[in-house]
């Protein structure tokens, strides 16, 4: 599903965010990207969503080389990926239902269909009762869940999330992670960037640890305190 091949990313200010990183995430996988801030987590997500382009190397999404996607093709490409942003990126002058509907409106889905799918997505994140509220009337956790509903409403094959539990209390964070896990159970590939090690220790999932734009270690942590298996140092 996602393949990074010797990817370098240098920003205009001269900072090297990624230094020749390579990894593979298969279809239907659930993976955490972890590491200290500045390790390159956000850069990877931005490259996947075509918000940024690699300086060198190749990024393949669903067997498609992103460097072959021209500016005109970016919208269609993004419609296939659900993105959850750390700062939610909700439109505050519109009700929750319209925020969630945005990817469908943009893709030209018929109105009746939109209503049905928006309600289904809000139901999944447990916010069906808030569809008429404005984002600012909601708590941070609820806003984050609106963002998730928006990311899954178009039924993407790939869901990426940047620090989705950043400002949440542990209980709420766990709830949101479980929601991602449920989505993964129905076949969605999920990639989550987070530095909340305590939280992800509770999940049996692939973990890619980054440091200074490289993969430091990769492995699978089994939940409920079992001894990590398959762990290997890259």
């Amino acid at each position, binding site marked *: 599903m996602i393949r990074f091949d010797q990817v370098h990313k240098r920003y205009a200010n001269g900072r090297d965010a990624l230094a020749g990183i390579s990894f593979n995430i298969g279809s239907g996988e659930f993976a955490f990207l972890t590491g200290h801030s500045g390790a390159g987590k956000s850069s990877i997500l931005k490259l996947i*969503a075509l*918000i940024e382009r690699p300086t060198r190397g190749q990024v393949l999404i669903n067997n498609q080389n992103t460097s072959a996607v021209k500016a*005109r093709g970016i*919208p*269609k*490409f*993004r*419609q296939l990926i659900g*993105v959850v*942003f750390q700062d939610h*990126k*909700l*439109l505050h*002058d519109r009700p929750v239902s319209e925020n969630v509907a*945005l*990817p469908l*409106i*943009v*893709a*030209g889905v*018929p*109105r009746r269909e939109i209503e049905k799918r928006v309600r289904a997505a809000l139901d999944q994140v447990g916010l069906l009762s808030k569809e008429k509220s404005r984002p600012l009337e909601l708590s941070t956790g609820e806003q984050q869940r609106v963002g998730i509903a*928006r990311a899954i409403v178009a039924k993407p094959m790939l869901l990426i999330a940047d620090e989705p539990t950043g400002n949440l209390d542990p209980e709420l964070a766990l709830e949101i992670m479980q929601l991602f896990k449920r989505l993964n159970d129905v076949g969605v590939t999920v990639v989550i960037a987070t530095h909340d090690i305590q939280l992800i220790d509770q999940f049996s999932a692939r973990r890619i640890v980054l440091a200074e734009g490289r993969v430091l270690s990769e492995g699978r942590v089994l939940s409920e305190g079992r001894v990590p298996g398959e762990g290997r140092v890259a």
Partner: protein
Amino acid sequence: MTAGFEAWLARHAQTLLGSLGRIVRHPIATAMTIAVIAVALALPLFFNVLLQNTRTATANWNQAFELSVYLTQKAGADRAEALAKQLRARPDVASVRVITADRALAEFRTSSGFGKALDALEDNPLPNTLIVTPTIGASTPEATVALKTSIEAAADVDAVQLDTEWVQRLNAMLDVMRRVLWLTGGLLGLSVVLVVGNTIRLDILNRREEIEVMKLVGATDGFARRPFLYSGVWYGLGGGVGAVIVVAIAVAVLSRPLGHLASLYGSQFHLTGLRFGAVVRILGISVALGWLGSWIAATRHIRAVEP
């Protein structure tokens, strides 16, 4: 209608109304923009109304023209009749009327009120005159000038006066005015494009975040641009309606005093306002200008918004 087309139509209708709702939510800023457009459009529109009226008022003058042929003092009435007969034979002449010097003096005496003064004159100072009317076919400016030259060459002819000369001057002047109208209209139209473009640009800067989010969830530039294009259309339509109202008021204010002025000159002139066709045209133009202004600004600035 297919379901896809229906959905497309519904989306456009929704965006159209949405953008109207958005600009109505800022009534003062919107009113200012529309007022600027209305004034810019009202100027050439009103000028056009005046020009149109002048042309209608002078249109029938074009047709009725004649040549006045003044004979020399020594040519007598018999010579005038002979020349008249000669001219009547020409294919480009419809009719010739002879006004003898005596008759001209008699007419002048009664109409001018200088009767007594004229008695003091020893000789009749007026020449024998022929009034020549060309045929319809020979009424073009070129043909009339040719006829004039040809008559001037005849013996005993002192001067030929083409009575249409001042009409031609008027027409030339109207022509210049029309061009001035096109120039000012073009410049003011350009200013409408710039005003709408600038308004849309500020609008886009204010809604940068929204456009960014739209693009993040996969909106094309065209999709993000659409509400701004509709805003431009609304601004244009509002400005066009405003211009029509301004001109209607100006015509109403001017029509009575102008009619009065004309009646003092013994004319039936009546100021004609905007016709339905002209209103439709100006609204079409203003909408097109609004759309163009927003298209230019939105295309440029939306492309620049990158998440």
